[in-house]
């Protein structure tokens, strides 16, 4: 398993039956491949469908059915079409059970920065600010460091996506939960020690007695 697969598989363990879930573009979208057997969750694409399905059969793509990245998708039986007002009404109104998003930085307060790097191209926040503000659970799915530079830091130096504490950070090295007391290390990744994680993290980590290890079937 490479880093991304570890992250996607571990995030998939956060899914519960009946959840409405939004997966960001890129790494987060891989989570859809690891939904536990028999578990029914509804994936929302913020561009307008609840019940996002996999890729359509060759030659049967509909130009009016894509995901938020613009790729052709299908809709599962029981799907619903929604317009942007309903889509973001669900997101901001607390109806979205979980969003999984990439991250540039997360800090000791659990604040996430994932939408811009000053001085670089500004892609725009798209739906990220609404998702982080409104979803019941915000799970950050990202590789632990960017080319050696720590991404889990004492305080974000990049502009925040929202002034809200995220629910969970999942990397290939660790599962970390932001709490009132700070960042609590919940699980270590495959073949990784607490010292390895500390060395790759500039934020202070609280290591509880009941520290777990990621486990995959």
């Amino acid at each position: 398993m490479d880093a991304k697969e570890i992250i996607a598989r571990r995030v998939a363990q956060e899914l519960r039956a009946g959840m409405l879930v939004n997966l960001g573009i890129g790494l987060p979208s891989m989570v859809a491949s690891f939904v536990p057997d028999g578990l029914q969750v509804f994936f929302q694409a913020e561009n307008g469908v609840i019940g996002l399905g996999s890729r359509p059969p060759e030659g049967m793509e509909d130009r009016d059915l894509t995901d938020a990245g613009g790729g052709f998708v299908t809709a599962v039986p029981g799907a619903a079409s929604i317009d942007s007002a309903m889509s973001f009404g669900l997101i901001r109104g607390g109806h979205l059970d979980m969003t999984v998003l990439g991250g540039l930085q997360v800090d000791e307060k659990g604040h996430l920065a994932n939408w811009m790097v000053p001085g670089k191209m500004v892609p725009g926040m798209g739906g990220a600010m609404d998702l982080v503000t409104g979803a019941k659970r915000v799970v950050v799915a990202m590789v632990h460091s960017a080319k050696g530079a720590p991404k889990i830091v004492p305080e974000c130096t990049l502009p925040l996506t929202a002034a809200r504490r995220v629910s969970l950070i999942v990397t290939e090295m660790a599962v970390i939960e932001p709490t009132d007391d700070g960042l609590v290390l919940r699980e270590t990744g495959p073949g990784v020690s607490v010292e390895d994680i500390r060395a790759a993290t500039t934020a202070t980590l609280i290591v509880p007695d009941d520290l777990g290890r990621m486990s995959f079937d």
Partner: protein
Amino acid sequence: MKRALKPEEAAEMIPEGAVLLIGGFMGVGSPHRLIDAIVARGVGGLTLVNNDTCRPGEGVGKLIDAGLVDKAIVSHIGLNPVTQQKMISGEMEVELVPQGTLVERIRAGGVGLGGVLTPTGVGTLVEEGKRVIEIDGRKFLLERPIRGDFALLDARHADYVGNLEYSLTAHNFNPVMALAADTVIAEPHHIMPVGVISPDAVKTPGVLVDYLLERAH
């Protein structure tokens, strides 16, 4: 009974400097024949309101390529390097708006509300220059309504009195934009007699629509 316009007739209605609300999310649910007609006519100084600026050579991206857009009010420009270049060179102004805020601002403009009170953007760069209203100890940004001179919509079906149906992820901003412009022009994939669309299936009542684009040849 609505008049069916040729694409070039529709484009001729649009004056220099007009504010255009154009449906679509990465080109899905955009009125492509209308966009092509505007590019062919070459009327400039436009303000474009859309979810994004699509990609170069695609959807509303064609308006950017042609240099017709002075200002874009969008949530995302990350997939259009032409927009980014024009923004940096100062040739074009870009107002980036969180996607859920963007659709509510257009809705507010359409349904006669004075603004939107949203938690999205509080404590971020988006807050800069905006009024913050505290309600029961929580902070909300006061975001201003958006209206257009024209709304240019894509729809799956229309009937002769202008009732519209949208499909799957091609809904996106179209139903809300239909409320928020002085002149509304819809480009349906099919135009059908009155009575073919059930009252319950109508997403945009025909009273909101001023013109239909004639059938594609």
